[in-house]
């Protein structure tokens, strides 16, 4: 097939509507964006072309509102092999191995159809990772739901969790971690962020840039149906009540086919046949083909009638915009088509040569011999709209004086209430539905440590991973909240003994056209950038999800941070379970008693106010490096970082996880009011259970790290001198009972 590209204007499809301002608007293009399109094309576009521009210039694909800000994130370190810009980030973890990871949102689809929305989110992020040549080894998920009393919440929780499990379990990838929060701000717009971590040999990473004139472009995987047409444009549009009518655009996932696709791709990758490979995610064939051609500086001719189709009567517009799942686009070396075809046929997958690379830098699409689209590629990419949207930073609220917050009247009751509040209650009901043990490498399971730790098969190294964000802090002050999210992720990895290496982020925000929302975004990015720099924790991949609003009400700003670290000897990993009596409990880090934006304030006092706890990045690093060194020296039996709920909650969590009690007391002469000491959410702190407390305290003094013994382990109760005395069974029942009871109840 050779087509004299520019000279042949495309033909119209039968019954093709005329392009009116309304049609343009329905494609989500602003009038000035359409003007820009006309300048690039030099003529009125066909519907296929309009659909392509609309998808490529959607917020989801073009990052038009966020790009200027994302540039501020630090993305380099000696161990970074591939930063943002590819399907996933890649870091060197030694011994010729790389960790490949990314996090991605599937918020809007999950609200419309929770099972399939969440399932296809998991499917999509796994494809991003194995496209790069990595075998996925673990999944995580960060979920935010509305208020538990909202009529839709239960249904959404149950569908999303089943969907994540349904897909990940079938793929045989353990889902080892995540987080789940509830807040009324998510009532009409839940967040489903999925993360996958994979392992690849450093010398066998695959990229998307096409190369080689004339090389064949092949399509593999499932057939294309009418799934999710306009999904990419839809997920960038603010919701309103009639979003229900958009339902038929839901994509359905087939994890069985994706498992076959994974095995087939890895089998092909073991040969030398592949030049470039790219999964079809949002905006399917459109974004994958443009990305490959653009990155390679080449043109592409595709015969759309060659695309395997699931349904009769599909047209080029639908083929280019379909979001059918479990598909990939591959540029092969010439002459390797048969080798590749055999592999995909063995796995019972579709395989079709759909086009070839040209030097025209144009995308020329044909349909039974007629050209239906002819678009210059570079301007579509370089001239893509980019906005420096007006932004207004959120001012730092006044610090809340602990003296103005009442102490609990009944300490026992206050602890039970906190341990069973939706945000702190055990999420075992969720992670028991995820196969977290398959592959036989899970050393630290959900709830047993601050980060999940998974052995890298065939050796002694472990990968630690976590996802973190405290949206109420970000809401109160985005810069602090951004810093805190990074610091907490770094701390969680540190608490297992691993060295934190790099970050993926998932920026979930409201409508960026509102200056306050854009200000939240800007502030969060500044905070994240600052923390990543200070902690040597580069951002290697990420995803942005904007317009998370219902009827003008935005979600809490939620920049989820996913992080990965490495521990050289997995045998040295510690969890947070307190399993032995006779250990002493050391509190590392400074406790000033910060109650602003604390869970105690919200849950016990029903107040959401004040400045969030400040994050002293130098202290964070000093304390964390110290703790990691103590774990490495095998002085630590268990370790837990302090975050939501503060010290008392941290103590209770260690006790019930390991089934061992504790007796602790506020150190004499410590001037902090007790309720602030035990419930404050000061950052940069850890709890350590140890048989050699004196050594640790002495080492801490040398390192300039605050460390104090606050008690010892033993018995079957948690006892805080003069304040608390609770049987572990009672705390456990409250902690583990809430979610199952909630899910089993009817509205």
């Amino acid at each position, binding site marked *: 097939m050779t087509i004299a590209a520019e000279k042949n204007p495309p033909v119209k499809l039968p019954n093709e509507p005329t392009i009116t301002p309304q049609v343009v608007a329905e494609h989500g293009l602003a009038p000035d964006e359409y003007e820009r399109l006309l300048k690039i094309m030099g003529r009125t576009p066909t519907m296929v072309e309009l659909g392509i521009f609309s998808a490529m210039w959607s917020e989801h694909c073009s990052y038009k509102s966020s790009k200027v800000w994302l540039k501020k994130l630090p993305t380099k370190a000696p161990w970074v092999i591939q930063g943002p810009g590819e399907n996933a980030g890649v870091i060197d973890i030694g011994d010729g191995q790389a960790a490949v990871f990314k996090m991605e949102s599937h918020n809007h689809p999950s609200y419309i159809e929770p099972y399939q929305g969440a399932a296809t989110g998991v499917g999509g992020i796994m494809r991003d990772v194995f496209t790069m040549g990595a075998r996925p080894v673990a999944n995580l998920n960060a979920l935010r739901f509305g208020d538990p009393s909202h009529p839709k919440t239960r249904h959404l929780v149950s569908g999303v969790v089943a969907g994540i499990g349904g897909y990940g379990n*079938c793929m045989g990838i353990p889902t080892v971690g995540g987080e789940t929060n509830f807040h009324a701000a998510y009532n009409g717009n839940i967040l489903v962020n999925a993360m996958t971590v994979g392992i690849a040999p450093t010398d066998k990473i695959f990229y998307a840039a096409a190369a080689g004139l004339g090389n064949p472009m092949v399509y593999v995987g499932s057939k294309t149906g009418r799934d999710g047409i306009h999904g990419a444009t839809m997920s960038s549009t603010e919701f309103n009540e009639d979003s229900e009518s958009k339902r038929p655009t839901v994509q359905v996932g087939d994890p069985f086919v994706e498992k076959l696709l994974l095995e087939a791709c890895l089998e092909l990758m073991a040969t030398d046949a592949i030049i470039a490979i790219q999964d079809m995610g949002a905006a399917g064939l459109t974004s994958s083909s443009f990305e490959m051609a653009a990155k390679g500086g080449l043109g592409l001719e595709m015969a759309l009638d060659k695309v395997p189709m699931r349904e009769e009567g599909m047209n080029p517009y639908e083929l280019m915009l379909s979001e059918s799942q479990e598909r990939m686009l591959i540029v092969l070396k010439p002459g390797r088509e048969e080798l590749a075809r055999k592999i995909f046929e063995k796995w019972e997958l579709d395989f079709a040569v759909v086009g070839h690379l040209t030097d025209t830098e144009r995308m020329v699409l044909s349909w039974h011999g007629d050209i239906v689209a002819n678009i210059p590629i570079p301007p579509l990419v370089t001239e893509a709209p980019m906005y420096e949207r007006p932004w207004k930073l959120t001012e730092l609220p006044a610090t809340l004086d602990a003296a103005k917050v009442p102490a609990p009247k009944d300490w026992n009751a206050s602890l039970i209430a906190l341990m069973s509040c939706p945000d702190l209650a055990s999420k075992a009901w969720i992670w028991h539905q995820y*196969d977290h043990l398959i592959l036989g490498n899970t050393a630290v399971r959900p709830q047993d440590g601050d980060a999940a730790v998974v052995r890298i098969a065939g050796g002694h190294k472990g990968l630690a991973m976590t996802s973190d964000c405290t949206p109420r802090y970000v809401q109160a002050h985005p810069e602090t909240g951004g810093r805190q999210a990074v610091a907490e992720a770094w701390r969680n990895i540190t608490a297992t003994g691993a060295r934190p290496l790099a970050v993926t982020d998932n920026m979930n925000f409201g409508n960026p056209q509102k200056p306050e929302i854009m200000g939240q975004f800007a502030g969060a990015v500044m905070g994240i950038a600052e923390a990543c720099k200070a902690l040597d924790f580069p951002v290697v991949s990420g995803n942005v999800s904007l317009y998370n609003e219902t009827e003008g009400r935005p979600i809490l700003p939620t920049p989820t941070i996913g992080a990965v670290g490495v521990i050289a000897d997995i045998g040295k990993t510690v969890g947070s379970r307190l399993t032995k009596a006779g250990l002493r409990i050391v509190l590392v880090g400074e406790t000033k008693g910060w109650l602003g934006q604390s869970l105690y304030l919200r849950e016990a006092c029903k107040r959401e106010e004040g400045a969030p706890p400040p994050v002293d990045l130098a202290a964070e690093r000093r304390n964390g490096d110290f703790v990691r060194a103590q774990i490495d020296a095998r002085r630590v039996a268990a370790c837990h970082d302090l975050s939501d709920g503060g010290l008392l909650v941290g103590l209770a969590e260690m006790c019930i996880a390991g089934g061992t009690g504790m007796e602790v007391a506020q150190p004499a002469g410590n001037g902090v009011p007790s309720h602030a000491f035990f419930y404050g959410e000061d950052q940069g702190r850890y709890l350590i259970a140890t048989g050699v407390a004196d050594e640790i305290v002495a080492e801490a003094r040398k390192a300039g790290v605050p460390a104090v013994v606050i008690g010892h382990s033993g018995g079957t109760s948690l006892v805080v001198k003069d304040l608390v005395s609770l049987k572990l069974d009672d705390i456990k029942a409250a902690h583990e009972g809430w979610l199952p009871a909630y899910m089993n109840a009817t509205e």
Partner: protein
Amino acid sequence: MKAAVLVFPGSNREGDVAQAIELVTGQRPQMVWHGDGDFDKTDLIVVPGGFSYGDYLRCGAMAAQSPVMAEVKRRAAKGVPVLGICNGFQIVTEAGLLPGTLMRNSHLKFVCADVHLKVETSQSLFTNRYQAGQVIKVPVAHAEGNYFADADTLKKLEDRGQIAFRYCAPDGTVDGTGNPNGSIKNIAGVFNETKTVMGLMPHPENATEPLFGGTDGKALFEGIVEALT
């Protein structure tokens, strides 16, 4: 001992069981693709866990019809031991090598958790390293592990000592508290009449190393090796 592990489209715990077998025998088992109607002579055939054919229609139904299973049935008839784990249990049952069937968990959810099992007999090549009545801890991970058989079949199973494992509480009590899926009589694993075929829902292969879930499952593989070498 030479072992073969079958691989179907959608199998996903074949690596886990291969790793466990290698741990106790020092030898990587032979991996046998579902389309292969013939494979090397072997002392043990393992049908591993996973989601063969996506678990669509009925778990194990499509895999049970594959060429390799026809060969497995021939060899099983000659007495070659067959071990079906999780999806493998479902496949072996669908293939008619074991009585009963595995239905949807009574709570309708997938469940991944450590469970306790009471070993019903040590008198089999699969359980000889355990003692009758012993309680072991191994994980389950399934959505359809709810064992069901009609009253006659159950009676025969009980009378002939064909029940291998039952779910129990940590102290060995066999009641509802330790049952993760609603399975009848708390049945977690069963034998055929000659006790040369065993199927079980739990994953002993994921309990063979101290750092990764404990070692209670290891004795199952050690016992097989001892019996077959």
